[in-house]
């Protein structure tokens, strides 16, 4: 769902603040990622890391990578992709 274009996201009833948060988080991931490291990875892993940068969807990207969850999560961190979620949990 993360790669939804704005107009489609609105049609599907996603709150405006969530659309803005998704955009902001994507920008943060793009800005701080180590793109040289990402580009050096084998194609499947490279694609998965890029998917994570664009969507923040760890599970989806991990499945694409073909790697176990923890290994992929570690790789995300080696690629210096920040884990960023604007939305707060419960008080």
């Amino acid at each position, binding site marked *: 769902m993360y790669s939804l274009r704005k107009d489609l996201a609105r049609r*599907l009833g996603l709150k405006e603040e969530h659309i803005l948060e998704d955009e902001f988080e994507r920008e943060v991931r793009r800005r701080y990622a180590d793109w040289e490291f990402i580009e050096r990875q084998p194609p499947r892993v490279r694609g998965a890391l890029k998917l994570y940068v664009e969507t923040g969807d760890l599970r989806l990207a991990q499945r694409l990578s073909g790697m176990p969850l923890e290994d992929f999560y570690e790789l995300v961190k080696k690629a210096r992709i920040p884990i960023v979620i604007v939305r707060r*949990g419960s008080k």
Partner: protein
Amino acid sequence: MIASIDTCFLIDWSRYRGRRLLEEIFDYVFVAEEVLGEVKTEKTVEYISDLLAKGFLVIYPFKSELLPLVRRILEVSISDPRIPVLDPPEAYAFAIAYREDCVCLTENKGVLRLVEYYDEFREVKVWRSLELIEYLYRKGLIRDLEGELKKYSEDTRHVFPKKRFG
């Protein structure tokens, strides 16, 4: 206080220098068996086995009773495009929190959205590491909130933007 916890939260806390603080807040923490199959590195396995051995981390003993709820959570996350798709380990962590009326420890955005979009799940208390560290601060278990968040970020690569929308 009791909590349920998912895989990534455990992985992150196994790397955080303040990980012992988890035991200061909660009496015990439930974990779904599915989570154990997802951890691989020595650091995380050691952390989890230590917590299990202490009886602090507890494999949820009423798993079969959770199945209809887990199925419902997974169905919602698959069919509603507003919710990022959940995998069973997160769905179990959330279902345990719902059933036990305890805190769900997760960084999963799908879980955060479930609580916001679905009235039936609205009452479930979901904490990210940010809320947990803030709680530690309010309880006086840490003195410097900003400093602790900085340490957590350094250890786990989480960032906590102050920007808010809406």
